């Protein structure tokens, strides 16, 4: 009799445990690893929601792909041929308008019109080549640097007089997908989740009674440099020179091209920004890390201020850390940081 009671009690406690667990799924989309973790939902509900999110990611990947068949490629072809592109697709129009706005806001450090430069550097391939492109080609492309403002959008059509424009939304798509995932999870009544697209992360709700905790990758070591407790709705994005790059003659060439030089930016190893739950916060956490990575050191901090980024950390080319005061108060270091190597802004 007592034994039976014990069994009942045990089963009761065990089921209690099961419901508190997280459900995590991974997939390979956008040429990188995507991962969604859901807390405190039944397995069926969580799995269904994650599948909806992954389907949206697959749609966006095909929709915005920079070098395979996509609407972006069609637009690029029209601009190249100096044709008018007519479309009733409101999503792509609002995405392009947002990108125009963001290029201006980031003083041109985020410039999605430079697809030709990115391509010349060989980053328009899953497996890019390790050849340094001809400097004449690069200088020529840079001298005719296109801008998003040269794309003219009118009711139902799009055109440009500058056939050097080649849209590459690689620095925007993953952030946009974060915001789309948030929408889908909200619609499906998932309140607690962590969405990770190739390292860009958005937190929904919490992990039980604590915040979601996110590790920040060290740009030169195989481990995390520290971790951050993400309050509900916050997002984090990093631009780094350690994921997509190649090395020739001991010189590192990353995929982050400085529009002002036409060459891969060398002013940082990584730049991380943390954004509160504002409109488009997922998109912006992806986009805003770029100007902080690319801009020269003397401009990084004023740009952060202009963009209203209170939480940021930049690991400089020499490995020294520049960090905002707010970020310093939030970060939990995973290794000992010498005070000499850290500057607080």
């Amino acid at each position, binding site marked *: 009799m007592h034994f039976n009671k014990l069994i009942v009690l045990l089963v009761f406690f065990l089921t209690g445990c099961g419901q508190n667990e997280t459900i995590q799924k991974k997939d390979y989309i956008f040429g990188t690893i995507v*991962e969604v973790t859901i807390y405190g939902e039944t397995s069926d509900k969580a799995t269904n929601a994650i599948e909806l999110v992954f389907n949206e990611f697959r749609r966006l990947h095909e929709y915005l792909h920079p070098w395979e068949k996509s609407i972006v490629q069609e637009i690029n072809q029209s601009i190249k041929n100096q044709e008018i592109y007519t479309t009733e697709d409101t999503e792509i129009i609002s995405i392009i308008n947002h990108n125009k706005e963001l290029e201006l806001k980031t003083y041109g450090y985020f410039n999605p019109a430079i697809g030709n430069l990115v391509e010349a550097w060989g980053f328009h391939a899953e497996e890019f080549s390790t050849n340094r492109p001809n400097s004449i080609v690069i200088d020529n492309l840079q001298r005719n640097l296109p801008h998003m403002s040269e794309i003219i959008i009118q009711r139902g059509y799009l055109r440009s007089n500058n056939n050097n424009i080649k849209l590459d939304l690689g620095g925007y798509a993953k952030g946009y997908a974060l915001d789309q995932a948030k929408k889908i999870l909200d619609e499906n009544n998932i309140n607690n989740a962590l969405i990770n697209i190739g390292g860009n992360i958005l937190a929904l709700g919490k992990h039980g009674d604590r915040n979601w905790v996110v590790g920040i*990758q060290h740009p030169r070591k195989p481990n*995390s440099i520290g971790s951050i407790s993400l309050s509900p709705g916050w997002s984090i994005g990093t631009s780094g020179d350690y994921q997509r790059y190649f090395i020739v003659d001991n010189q590192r060439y990353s995929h982050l091209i400085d529009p002002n030089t036409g060459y891969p930016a060398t002013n940082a190893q990584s730049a991380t920004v943390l954004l509160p739950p504002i409109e488009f916060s997922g998109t912006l956490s992806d986009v805003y890390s770029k100007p902080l990575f690319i801009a020269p050191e003397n401009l990084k901090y004023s740009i952060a201020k202009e963009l209203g980024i209170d939480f940021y950390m930049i690991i400089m080319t020499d490995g020294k850390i520049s960090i905002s005061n707010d970020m310093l108060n939030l970060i939990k270091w995973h290794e000992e940081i010498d005070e000499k190597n850290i500057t607080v802004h």
Partner: protein
Amino acid sequence: MKKILQFISKIQIGDLFTIIIFIVLTTYLSSILWNFPQGEYLKIDMGKQEIGSFSLNQNVTKVIEGPVGKTEVIIDSGKVRISKSPCTKKYCIHQGWINQINQSIVCVPNQIYISIIGNQTDYDSLNY
């Protein structure tokens, strides 16, 4: 005190030998068995597919078939590396050995993701 001295004086060479052997053996075994595994196990993913989790407490070579070809992962008593890869850059191989919880090696072309998982992780997800 006297008794201890008496005891020590009674120790023969054979006793000493046994004691030394005992100390050396205990130190040696505890140093290799106690300190590891620092991570609990190795998790291998290929794309969205989880290949499996393997104890670090063994010496084996795993071959994983990815979209580009075969990736070879070596587990060597608590540490792990990628030893062969069909990718062109071989960044995954150059990364060398990993042995701590949360360390990972990614081979993007072949979609291989290996990471050392512990019972307790410091975080829920990684920003990179």
